[in-house]
């Protein structure tokens, strides 16, 4: 049917009838997992976006009230599942603060190495999938191959490649050996050329830059007011990194830079992540050179960590100590206190608010998930952009649904 003049008049109708609503997700390739957005569009311009979350809500915090401090580590693993060990370290950092435990220097260095490996892990996936969503498949495959190597490293330390459940209150599950240290050195040697290759593939790629430069701008004031932390805040010019500002583990002894940018757009976030990987490599190398000898767990006499197996099998004291830790009605004296403790996870400030009630399990185990805070800013930074920019912005925020919904 040919076009009538009356049709044109209708298109100019008042009340913005020309706006239309688009449902995006919860099952969509660019959302990676289970995010859902309801977009209001004017042509291809996004006028408004309403995120709907909770499609992966699994009751983590309720479970935290029913499991003891060591058991719950298996659950926090599954929170930010692209860097599981970072969650474990954050959780036990908070628990140890509540219980007033000072871990051994060797454990501090070991956890620092693992935390930084997880930062590489997380940033690699984020950089890879940002490229993947925008049509650059090669960088994703390169990044994923490096991730496989990190999987191998954590597998040889803990026995599991994905959800390691490696840390314990007062230490880690097993100590590592020299071969493991050499394995990381090997990995870092191979990692640097791949990092450079990804740089060459993406950083000056015309298509990639056009898609993400100037998209999703977030100012420093807004970032602070909206509670944004981590690489996102640093890309907006907020110079805050808990590793420097509230040093935990071994970070006080190490030499590294806080990477930041003033631009605040998706490209700045990508660059900050790329650069942070190099800093992480630097940190890991320093830790490998200086990793102290000595026990990895705190003294078994504190009744917090189980004693070494030979002493359990061969001495009555060791056996008693083992039972003191393992029996459900024994365990450690938790102060009837509350604590908030945070670490710098790859995504930002990952905090735990724990209420202790005297039993070896938390009365309340609250997570402050960076993804949750970061997804809340999405409507603010997408307004006025094109529909195709939704994918770019989502990729740069690095939203992990399990951490978002818990």
């Amino acid at each position, binding site marked *: 049917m040919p076009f009538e003049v009356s049709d044109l008049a209708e298109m100019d109708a008042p009340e913005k009838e020309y706006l239309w609503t688009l449902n995006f997700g*919860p*099952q*969509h*390739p660019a959302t*990676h*997992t*289970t995010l859902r957005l309801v977009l209001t569009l004017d042509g291809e311009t996004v006028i408004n976006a309403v995120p709907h979350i*909770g*499609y*992966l*809500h*699994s*009751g983590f915090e*309720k*479970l935290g009230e029913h499991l003891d401090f060591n058991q719950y580590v*298996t*659950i926090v693993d*599954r929170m930010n*599942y*692209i860097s599981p060990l970072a969650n474990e370290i954050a959780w036990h950092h908070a628990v140890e603060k509540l219980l007033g435990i000072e871990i051994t220097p060797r454990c501090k260095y070991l956890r620092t190495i693992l935390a930084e490996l997880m930062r590489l892990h997380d940033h690699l*996936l984020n950089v890879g999938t940002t490229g993947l969503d925008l049509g650059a498949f090669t960088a*994703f*495959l390169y990044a*994923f*191959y490096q*991730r*496989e190597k990190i*999987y191998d490293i954590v597998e040889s330390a803990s026995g599991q*490649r*994905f*959800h390691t459940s490696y840390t314990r209150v007062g230490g880690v599950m097993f100590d590592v050996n020299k071969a493991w240290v050499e394995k990381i050195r090997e990995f870092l040697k191979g990692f640097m050329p791949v990092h450079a290759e990804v740089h060459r593939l993406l950083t000056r790629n015309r298509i990639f830059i056009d898609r993400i430069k100037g998209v999703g701008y977030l100012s420093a004031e807004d970032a602070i007011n909206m509670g944004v932390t981590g690489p996102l805040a640093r890309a907006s010019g907020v110079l805050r990194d808990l590793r420097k500002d509230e040093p935990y583990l071994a970070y006080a002894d190490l030499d590294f830079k806080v990477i930041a940018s003033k631009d605040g757009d998706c490209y700045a976030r990508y660059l900050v992540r790329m650069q942070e990987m190099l800093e992480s490599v630097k940190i890991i190398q320093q830790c490998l050179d200086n990793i102290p000898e000595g026990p990895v767990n705190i003294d078994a006499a504190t009744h917090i960590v189980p004693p070494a197996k030979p002493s359990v099998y061969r001495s009555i004291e060791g056996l008693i100590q083992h039972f003191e830790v393992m029996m459900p009605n024994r365990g450690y004296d938790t102060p009837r206190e509350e604590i908030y403790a945070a670490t710098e996870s790859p995504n930002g400030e990952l905090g735990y608010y724990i209420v202790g009630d005297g039993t070896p399990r938390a009365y309340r185990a609250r997570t402050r998930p960076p993804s949750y805070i970061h997804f809340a800013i999405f409507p603010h930074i997408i307004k006025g952009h094109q529909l195709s920019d939704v994918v770019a912005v989502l990729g740069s925020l690095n939203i992990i*649904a*399990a951490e978002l*919904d818990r």
Partner: protein
Amino acid sequence: MAMKDVPDNIFMTTLDAAASWARSNSLWPMPFATACCGIELMATASSRFDLARFGAEVMRFSPRQCDLMIVAGRVAMKMLPVLQRIWQQMPEPKWCISMGACACTGGVFDTYAVVQGVDRFIPVDLYVPGCPPRPEQLMAGIIALQDKIKHGGTLNGTEFARRDHSTGPVPFDKDELIRIREANEQLVSLN
């Protein structure tokens, strides 16, 4: 025509077997990836494990183009209606792999919000255990499913006729509800 007249590159088979063979080697998975297992699913499709070797690498995110749904990760009660909708949108013939402990049984998440096994609400052909399963395990699962498809046959859609009800535990049991409540009350009094 005598057998000796047949050239070497001609095979005799039934149409049924040929169709099943073709189906089994060109699975198009629909990755219903919700959580951790989704990352392992990505690893399976990536460079080291390379699912393409088994003809099942064409991941399509539109259910209309797929014939194998891989439920990777836990399914929360808010997500389950979405899962059922997507399953119904997939054209026949279709198969379902439940990947990981959470999709199979709810796994460690025995909580108010997580569905205790997707097999309670949609048909499942194959379970891959693990939390999360290693990529090798998922590939073993896909090979096992190919075997199942090859032996299933296509006539009258018999592979589907056999299962017309959920084979998991009874989904909603009033007695279970009462038992849960009682157990929880006892727990409270114990503490």
